[in-house]
């Protein structure tokens, strides 16, 4: 085994133990490893970004293939960096406007198609199946995800959870039953995060749904869809 591998193994083991010391209590060794981790990660990202973007996506195509149009995104990227010059910081808005505009435009049709239409289509499925020779059948098998019984359960689940999160009417009478079904169903799915965003005003319930997207590019970052009175609000 080579020398650098042996040293590497010792370094890796040491750093691993430094991080694990946090389980006992916070200490300087953990802090050292934590800061080293941030530094190395940032350094790694910078090197990779330089190598991929500047060398392979910009420099080589321009020099080898004469793709001068690539200077446009470089210019837009440079505009972003004006954020660091207080007097010229407003120029960076052009770059952000472009990214956010394109991002929003790309997101609308694709989200509607992929997550709204396709999901509704699969929720509203026929409850009865026509089998040639056997006629109309209703399947009771719970273990078959496509059975008629499961289709009904899913339909009730989706409707009641949507009702719980979205409908503004005060949850009394039949509405309360539906909303309670929704919140009980949430116990079977990872929906508790959204429960935190429920809040109540003096006059009526207003339901909020938080949409948190991480590391995902220029998509909406934090969103609250609220129904108040007679219309929807986003804020």
């Amino acid at each position: 085994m080579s020398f650098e591998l042996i040293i590497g193994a010792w370094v890796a083991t040491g750093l691993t133990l430094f991080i694990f010391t946090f389980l006992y209590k916070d200490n300087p060794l953990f802090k050292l490893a934590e800061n080293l981790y941030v530094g190395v990660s940032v350094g790694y990202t910078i090197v990779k970004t330089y190598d991929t973007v500047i060398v392979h996506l910009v420099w080589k195509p321009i020099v080898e293939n004469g793709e001068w149009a690539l200077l446009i995104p470089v210019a837009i990227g440079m505009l972003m960096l004006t954020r660091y010059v207080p007097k010229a910081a407003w120029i960076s808005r052009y770059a952000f406007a472009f990214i956010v505009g394109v991002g929003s435009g790309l997101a609308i049709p694709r989200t509607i198609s992929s997550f709204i239409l396709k999901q509704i289509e699969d929720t509203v499925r026929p409850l009865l199946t026509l089998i040639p020779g056997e006629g109309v059948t209703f399947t009771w098998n719970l273990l078959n995800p496509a059975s008629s019984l499961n289709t009904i359960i899913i339909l009730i689940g989706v409707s009641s959870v949507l009702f719980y999160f979205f409908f503004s009417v005060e949850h009394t009478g039949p509405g309360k039953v539906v909303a309670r079904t929704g919140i009980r169903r949430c116990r079977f799915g990872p929906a508790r995060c959204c429960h935190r965003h429920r809040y109540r005003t003096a006059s009526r319930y207003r339901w909020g749904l938080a949409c948190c997207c991480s590391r995902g590019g220029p998509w909406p970052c934090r969103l609250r869809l609220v129904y108040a009175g007679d219309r929807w609000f986003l804020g």
Partner: protein
Amino acid sequence: MIFLRRQVPLLITLITGLVFAGQYYVPHPASEQMLTSVTKWLQIIGGFALVLGVSSLFHVHAIKIRRKEAGWGYSFVLYVGMLGTIVAGMWSNGKEAVDGAMTAFGWVYNFMMVPLQSTMFAILAFFIASAAYRSFRARSREAAVLLIAAVIVMMGRVPLGEYLIPLSGDLSQWILNVLNASVRRAILIGVSLGTVALSIKIIFGKERSYLGGGKE
């Protein structure tokens, strides 16, 4: 000046937003070519965005070191780690391995970054176990349902659980496939509606927070 500082960016967002939302429905070669070019541009701009994101970190830690604030030594370690990685990366042309042989950059990645990041995430498992002990209490009917569902799924997802309670496998599968899927689906539909609504608000200039604060 307000026109240049505020109206022009909003106009850029409006035009690009409408054009690229409409592009999805226009499969003409010119429209497709435009999408190809602009997504390539976004790749390049994404690189600058990353640099913008990480460079704010330099600033914060540089101030800490200059002012010798509490814990400035750790900021120094961060700088050493970052600069050391950059030097090793530039020396190795950004490659972790060349023809199967590990470079200096690869050494930093394999023996520092990988164990540090993996372990940082691993300690989360211990805290989750501790949190489960403290918070998984059947205080109400809803909490009891949550507790039972969690126990069934935890049993059904490991061989020992299926061995001890053979039914747990099928039951957890049903919970995931039917009950969980219906809840997640409703949330997915809700979040997607919100995403579309927010995108429309951005395009039409109702949502402007992305422009940042500062002077008009």
